[in-house]
């Protein structure tokens, strides 16, 4: 009953979104048409319908309606209720529904904004958002129905379907298979929603860009009105990636946070283009340049989001061992083809119109350095894309399957990231239009001198790896320059207002949230870079089998094996839990409990490391089952990850900075909207 209700809601949502898309396109040329209001209302109506559908599905999962195929696949009786709730996105069909719901939330909010000044763009924004939404909801309706039920026919065969096959009866399994154990972790619970919120949010700025192209605008209005949407989506995407890294570190048992797995890269690529976009739009708003770049970047972001989710869900990236496919892959393929074609046509049609209003005068200007920024981000993007696509090319042309692993990515993107790091230090102090090297030098020499302390410190501590030293110096250079920027700005303010330094700093940030929030983000990136340098270049590991009382040694740490216990739990796991004592430089620092959880219902194991974290390094120990585990002998694998805590700390600062940058301005009722149009403003199209 509830399943029928839920499915009907999804079908209605499909109808509404299709109706809204078609209708808004029909009246696009005359946006004052009263039908536009109907399209808008239909677009808003999608949200309550999808909310209802999600509610039905979640309710049925929590209440153990195993006659639904999806429910029996992703949940089981042993799971606690909050895990059941998150099982909504635990499988393909449910996660697609969740994705659509999040998109409809964004879309509904956009519909509710004040459209008076952008009436010409409104139909196209509705059309683009609703077309995308209709596609995803359509997937749920046509191929991945979360409300499919299980039936048993007269021959005793279990079949899945929404409607009853002839002569069949509803079949309710006694228990479900249970959520993938790797998903039963707080990090994994929150990682998909954050990621999805990031991905689907980019539909909004993309729709505005398409609208601007479609109506023939060449101004920055679309950027300005969609800025907060872009920033919020980017915030969630960054958070989602960070959480994914942390989850992998905590629970995957590989001692690392990022594996350059194709599916990870598929999620990372939109982040690259959207970060470049966030920077590049500043140039368009300030000097009317980079209009074509910005269009390209947002179109790419949207395309990469769809492409990325296609790669992940269709099985294209897997090998011989891919699952039997539904038609989801081909449908995605068609949708990507159509949307990218339309984007390209609109872009090429408006290419001339998007000419820059000013020219680039010098490389050593803010515009020039931002151009370099775009180029580097594109370079990293292309490197990643090539690595992801090449296995497919290789298999199709030579029949040979290849793996493109971390060595390739590190070698190609490493130098480019280092160059970006350098840019991060130089670009903020470059002036608009032109900067002489001398002027730059005048500003930068003090922070540079200061920053040289850190590689010297590294050298003093025995670091001889030149790449590491260079990276350390780059990171501290940017750190010093960024702090210097804060100091400069606060000093300027202090001179004019007479406040003390701290109040000046606070007001400086408060009144220039975008710029100084951005600088805080840069600080966060620096800290993250420090963490990444530490773990990537200086990680050490060891593995050994020891009996109780014996020890393993790694670096300054000694680990003594105490005991191991094995016991079942209420939620149907068998836990093998070891106790070890960790000593650093001879002193006891921690007692850790690395363990292996075996989930009986899904027959899957999970390794949970014992972790001792300090700012200096992480002592990370895993219980390995290469040999039997007992008091007489247990195998442990220890990783020593220097500086990795800076990665997570940097992540916090990063998020804080994004919140600062995104925080609404209390000054203007329509934040960012200029209060008066200056006379020399030639950008506006009537």
């Amino acid at each position, binding site marked *: 009953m509830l399943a029928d209700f839920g499915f009907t809601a999804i079908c209605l949502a499909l109808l509404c979104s299709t109706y809204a898309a078609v209708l808004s396109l029909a009246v696009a040329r005359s946006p004052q048409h009263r039908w536009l209001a109907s399209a808008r209302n239909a677009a808003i109506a999608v949200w309550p319908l999808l909310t209802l559908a999600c509610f039905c599905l979640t309710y049925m999962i929590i209440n153990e309606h195993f006659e639904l195929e999806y429910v029996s696949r992703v949940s089981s009786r042993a799971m606690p209720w909050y895990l059941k709730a998150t099982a909504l996105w635990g499988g393909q069909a449910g996660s697609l529904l969740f994705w659509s719901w999040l998109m409809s939330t964004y879309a509904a909010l956009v519909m509710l904004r004040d459209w008076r000044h952008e009436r010409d763009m409104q139909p196209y924004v509705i059309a683009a958002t609703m077309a995308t939404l209709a596609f995803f909801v359509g997937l749920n309706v046509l191929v991945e129905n979360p409300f499919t039920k299980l039936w048993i026919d007269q021959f005793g065969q279990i079949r899945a379907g929404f409607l009853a096959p002839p002569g069949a009866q509803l079949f309710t399994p006694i228990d479900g298979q249970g959520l993938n154990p790797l998903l039963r972790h707080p990090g994994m619970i929150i990682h998909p929603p954050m990621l999805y919120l990031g991905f689907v949010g980019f539909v909004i700025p993309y729709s505005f860009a398409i609208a601007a192209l479609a109506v023939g605008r060449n101004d920055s209005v679309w950027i300005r009105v969609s800025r907060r949407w872009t920033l919020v989506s980017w915030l969630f995407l960054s958070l989602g990636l960070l959480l994914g890294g942390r989850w992998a570190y905590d629970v995957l048992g590989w001692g690392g946070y990022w594996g350059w797995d194709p599916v990870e890269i598929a999620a990372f690529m939109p982040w690259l283009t959207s970060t470049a976009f966030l920077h590049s739009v500043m140039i368009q708003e300030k000097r009317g340049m980079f209009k074509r*770049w910005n269009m390209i970047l947002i179109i790419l972001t949207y395309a990469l989001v769809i492409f990325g989710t296609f790669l992940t869900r269709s099985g294209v990236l897997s090998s011989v*061992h891919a699952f039997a*496919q539904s038609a989801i892959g081909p449908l995605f*393929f068609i949708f990507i083809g159509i949307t990218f074609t339309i984007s*390209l046509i609109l872009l090429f049609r408006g290419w001339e119109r998007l*000419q820059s209003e000013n020219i680039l005068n010098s490389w050593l200007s803010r515009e020039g350095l931002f151009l370099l920024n775009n180029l580097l981000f594109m370079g990293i993007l292309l490197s990643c894309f090539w690595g992801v696509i090449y296995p*497919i*090319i290789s298999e199709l042309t030579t029949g040979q399957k290849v793996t493109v692993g971390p060595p390739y990515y590190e070698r190609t993107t490493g130098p480019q990231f280092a160059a970006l790091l350098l840019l991060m230090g130089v670009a903020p102090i470059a002036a608009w239009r032109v900067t002489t090297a001398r002027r730059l030098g005048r500003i930068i020499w003090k922070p540079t001198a200061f920053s040289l302390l850190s590689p010297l410190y590294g050298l003093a501590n025995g670091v001889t790896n030149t790449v590491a030293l260079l990276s350390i110096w780059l990171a501290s250079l940017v750190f010093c320059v960024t702090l210097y920027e804060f100091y400069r700005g606060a000093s300027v303010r202090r001179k004019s207002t007479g406040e003390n330094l701290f109040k000046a700093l606070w007001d400086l940030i408060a009144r220039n949230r975008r710029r100084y929030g951005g600088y805080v983000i840069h600080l966060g990136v620096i800290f993250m870079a420090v963490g990444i340098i530490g773990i990537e270049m200086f990680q050490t590991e060891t593995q050994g089998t020891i009996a109780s009382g014996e020890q393993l040694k790694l670096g300054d740490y000694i680990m003594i094996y105490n005991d191991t216990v094995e016991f079942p739990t209420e939620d149907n796991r068998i836990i093998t839990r070891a106790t070890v004592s960790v000593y650093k430089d001879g002193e006891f620092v921690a007692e850790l409990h690395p363990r292996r959880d075996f989930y009986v219902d899904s027959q899957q194991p999970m390794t949970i490391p014992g972790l001792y974290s300090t700012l200096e390094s992480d002592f990370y120990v895993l219980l390995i089952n290469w040999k039997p585990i007992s008091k007489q002998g247990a195998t442990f694998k220890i990783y020593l990850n220097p500086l990795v805590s800076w990665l997570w700390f940097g992540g916090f600062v990063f998020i804080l900075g994004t919140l600062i940058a995104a925080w609404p301005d209390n000054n203007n009722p329509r934040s960012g909207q200029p209060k008066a149009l200056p006379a020399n403003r030639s950008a506006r199209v009537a």
Partner: protein
Amino acid sequence: MTHTAPRIAGTVPEGTPAARKRWGQLAVWGLFATLMILVGIKLYQITLGPISSGRAPDFTLTTFDGENYTLSDYVGQVIVINFWASWCGPCELEAADLEQAWRNYRKHDVLFLGIDYVDTENEAQAYLQKWDVTYPNGADLRTAISQAYRIRGVPETYIVAQDGTVAFTIIGPTDYTKLTAALDSLLNE
């Protein structure tokens, strides 16, 4: 992207922006089309199920004893191709049945070939000895044969008719009854 068209009166510069633009657009469309074609083909391949009809892909298997068996050399015979691995639990369920079928049907000129999928030789030999397997078995070097047959796991069994086409496809462990039923139907045609 950040430039304006040079406006020099009276001349049309070579490589005009218009011409450059057209080439650029063509390049973009070309790249996009290439990508879509590649991905499309890959998608198509994924949607193809296991081989269940048509000509059986040819291959040469080098057994653990050093003999070579090329599939096309045995046209006119019924051939049973079985993919297995020593680390595969369910493969053991069918091992005895396969051997028994081999012993009973070899006089009817039926050839059994065991393809060992990504295995280690020691464990493979141990597995063969454990189940007293006497029909030819060899390692699938570079997984060439498995890729040709698009297998999705082990065990899988393909029965090739006398004309060289795939007649029966069994995914998962099989048993003596199923094997003999299939073989009988092919031999009695």
